[in-house]
């Protein structure tokens, strides 16, 4: 006897179809670039064709009677993130040059892009057409704030189901409805994202005109896409290190703002800046970043192997710490060459993450703040067992259930990170690749926490192409799981999800 499936999967698949049929719109951007530069438009036409075909097929199973509940949202979020990445991989395969011509590598590059990780398997950047390189940037920009919040903003079919989707996409917080209609809220948030990206284009381009001809309009757009999205791809093999120091400084605030809660930015723009400035998570996030940057600067100052001037020492410390903590993954210099002290600080920074409700990834400041505060509370209740002490963030009590969820999430993240490290080490040994433990730890953290570069071969100026194919396949899955905060994927593997 087969047990009845209790998930209205037709609703999830139908929604996935809706998203896939809308995907040709962003793909049109690199298509135009290809036409402008006289490059082959075929990679993008192929992606558009597949996207429309699969989308139409998915839409055909839609049953209008079925509602999008919590379970359907889990399924839809997992499916959409995976399939959008799969469509995103098509241009790399069709273009057929370099390492990304291989389907697994193409999927790695697309998943790393969409999840705003920024780890790359490209080896020789000069092989690739400008349109393909721009596609990597566009796909990161799409993934930056989350695809579902974008879908809610632009697809009128979603309606109130958008609240469920946005909540599923970011596990950390309840959806903060800024307006009665969820689609309007999503539009407001995306409007800020759009505006910041536009501002970044303008700032980079004008600075480029002033100090650095390499920062042309193409590069300004490409880097604006991936800095506000805290994503990290760059069409330049030297990342942001290829540009004038002034431009490097200019990138820092956009990464930092990208990792700041967009809800609080919304309030700040609308005349309530205190809600942002007095937010404890904001203090924690800036404080962590500032502390790490100072320690790294000090370590670099002491390190005889790197001889930057005073400005450059501070700039490289601030830039790379900000890049790691915001989970962007740019680099201003090859920090693989730094002394262990500075590198370990960067490694530690990988676990912090920016604020919830932003484009950041990793564990996120709010979770650490709640965990630290509730641990401090435990110390107090050890002395006064009867004391009732709510954990407060910015004066607001945090629900005890939420604290348990956060503890569980932290533990789960650390366990998965640890397992991935072991997989990397074992798989490397199987294929005879030399990977040190620190490099394995770094590579595991950087992919699962969606940061980008790691250390050693996988450093900011290196590539993930040297890892065995099997390791990269595992990383694809973990970038996917990590970006949508573990739960939506893991619940799909429980029996209860499908049958009870």
């Amino acid at each position: 006897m087969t047990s009845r499936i209790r998930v209205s999967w037709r609703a999830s698949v139908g929604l996935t179809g809706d998203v896939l049929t809308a995907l040709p719109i962003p793909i049109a951007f690199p298509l135009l670039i290809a036409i402008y530069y006289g490059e082959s438009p075929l990679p993008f036409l192929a992606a558009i064709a597949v996207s429309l075909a699969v989308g139409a097929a998915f839409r055909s199973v839609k049953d209008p009677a079925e509602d999008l509940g919590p379970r359907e949202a889990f399924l839809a979020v997992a499916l959409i993130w995976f399939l959008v990445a799969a469509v995103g991989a098509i241009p790399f395969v069709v273009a057929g040059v370099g390492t990304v011509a291989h389907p697994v590598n193409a999927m790695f590059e697309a998943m790393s892009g969409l999840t705003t990780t920024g780890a790359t398997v490209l080896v020789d950047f000069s092989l690739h057409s400008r349109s393909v390189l721009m596609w990597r940037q566009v796909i990161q920009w799409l993934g930056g704030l989350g695809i579902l919040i974008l879908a809610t903003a632009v697809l009128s079919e979603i309606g109130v189901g958008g609240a469920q989707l946005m909540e599923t996409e970011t596990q950390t917080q309840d959806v903060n409805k800024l307006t009665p209609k969820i689609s309007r809220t999503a539009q407001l948030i995306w409007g800020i994202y759009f505006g910041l990206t536009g501002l970044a284009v303008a700032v980079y381009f004008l600075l480029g005109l002033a100090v650095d001809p390499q920062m042309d309009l193409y590069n300004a757009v490409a880097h604006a896409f991936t800095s506000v999205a805290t994503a990290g791809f760059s069409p330049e093999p030297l990342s942001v290190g290829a540009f004038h120091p002034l431009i490097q400084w200019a990138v820092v605030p956009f990464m930092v703002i990208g990792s700041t809660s967009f809800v609080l930015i919304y309030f700040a723009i609308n005349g309530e800046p205190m809600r942002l400035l007095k937010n404890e998570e904001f203090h924690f996030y800036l404080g962590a970043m500032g502390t790490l940057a100072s320690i790294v600067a000090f370590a670099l100052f002491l390190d005889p192997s790197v001889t930057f001037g005073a400005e450059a020492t501070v700039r490289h410390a601030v830039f790379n710490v900000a890049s790691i903590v915001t989970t962007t993954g740019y680099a201003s210099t090859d920090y693989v060459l730094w002394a262990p002290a500075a590198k370990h600080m960067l490694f530690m920074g990988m676990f912090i993450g920016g604020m919830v409700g932003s484009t950041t990834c990793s564990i996120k400041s709010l979770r650490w703040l709640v965990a630290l505060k509730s641990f401090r509370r435990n110390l107090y209740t050890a002395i006064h067992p009867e004391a009732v002490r709510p954990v407060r963030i910015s004066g607001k009590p945090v629900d005890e259930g939420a604290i348990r969820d956060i503890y569980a999430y932290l533990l789960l993240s650390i366990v998965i990170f640890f397992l991935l490290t072991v997989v990397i080490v074992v798989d490397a040994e199987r294929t005879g690749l030399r990977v040190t433990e620190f490099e394995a730890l770094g590579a595991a953290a950087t992919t699962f926490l969606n940061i980008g570069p790691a250390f050693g071969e996988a450093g900011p100026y290196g590539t993930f192409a040297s890892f065995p194919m099997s390791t990269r396949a595992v990383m694809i899955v973990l970038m996917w799981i990590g970006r949508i905060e573990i739960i939506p994927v893991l619940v799909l593997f429980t029996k209860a999800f499908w049958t009870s």
Partner: protein
Amino acid sequence: MHVVVIGAGEVGTSIAGSLASDHEVVVVDVDPDRAEQLKYEIDVLTIAGDGTSSEIQTAADVGRADMVIACTDNDQTNLVACGTAKTLGDGFTIARVKSTDFLRTWQGNEGAFGVDFMVCTDLLTAENIVRVIGLPAAIDVDPFASGLVQMAEFEIAEGSPVAGQTVSEADRFESLTFVGLFRDGELTIPRGDTGIEAGDRAVVIGSPESVQAFATDVAPETTPDEADDIVIVGGSEIGYQTARLLGERELRPRVVEKDQERARWLAEQLPKSVVMEHDATDAEFLTRENVDDSDIVVTALGSDEQNLLVAVLAKRLGVDRVIAVVDSPDYVTVFEEIGIDIAINPRTVTAEEITRFTYESVAENIAVLENDQAEVLELELTEGCALVGRPISEMVSEIDARFVIGAITRGHQLVTPRGDTVLQPGDHVILLVDSDSVSEITSMA
């Protein structure tokens, strides 16, 4: 005066009792037995029925009433009764409520619910407890303007830090006014350079927080401060309000509450207080948490039996001062006889407050000082009265009377009087007046 009292519980009975001799009082109660019985206790007309129905209110002749007092145990009933009364006539309506939410709504919107004056039982009780706790050094304390303003009289002891200072040195608080100084029984209207000597009695008017802060300056030894350990047992509404008000006065009480959800709620509402979830009748717990060493214990549990038990326990463990909330007025003396320092009855407090309000006078509220040498009055200014429309400094120089304006409340907000402050109609003014000038001042309001 024709007065209708709705609700013949302890509060209603007490109010009706004190008004019966001078006024025409009708009491409405939903319970026919209670209505019947009351007829023989006090000289009033009683009507059995629902006080919110216009039929019953018409029977009680509310349309002609000068005052309608709704004081049943149910907030909604009282509010609806006042609303109904306003549709029948334009008598002054007074409602007793427990919920501070209703009080806030009423304070923010004049005439909300058809209520002209609202008395919040639990808040009033808490304010009483806080006065007892916070101002042991004061000879006399009186609340004005629904608790927004306090008048307090202090005797400046030998060695008080304030002794030897001038008034302007001592009065370093924004919302506090030094209104009077008694030296050898003689009233002086203080000026900035008036010196304060030991043995003087100082009268101040201001926000309760500023009065509390001034008390700390005058008598640092006896006035509780942050270092003093205050424990509130029972997180009832009274317990909560007490903790909240003490918190506003920079004191950090601990709260003990047995119910898990209520304890959590209290802890969320009182970020500066430590809330403990436990049964306060457990002596072992009280000792472990050092409640026996605390300076003040307030019991605000649900029943008199529990309050009695905890109060006696606290006293036995060696707590200095124990203040008990006693629900039944009959037990107040019992509590005090067995050694509880102060017993406070919420119903008595409420009845007193409402009764005080019913006194016929231009002044809404009066405190008499030092053998009637001076009075502190609360006046509500009417359109076109002589005090309105001029800066205070100009007015003081023209009026030939000895008085000092201590505080002004405008729309339930405290306004600190300055020389250039212009009084407006509707303002409540709290002022100290030389007894000889009282009639002159009240005739101007």
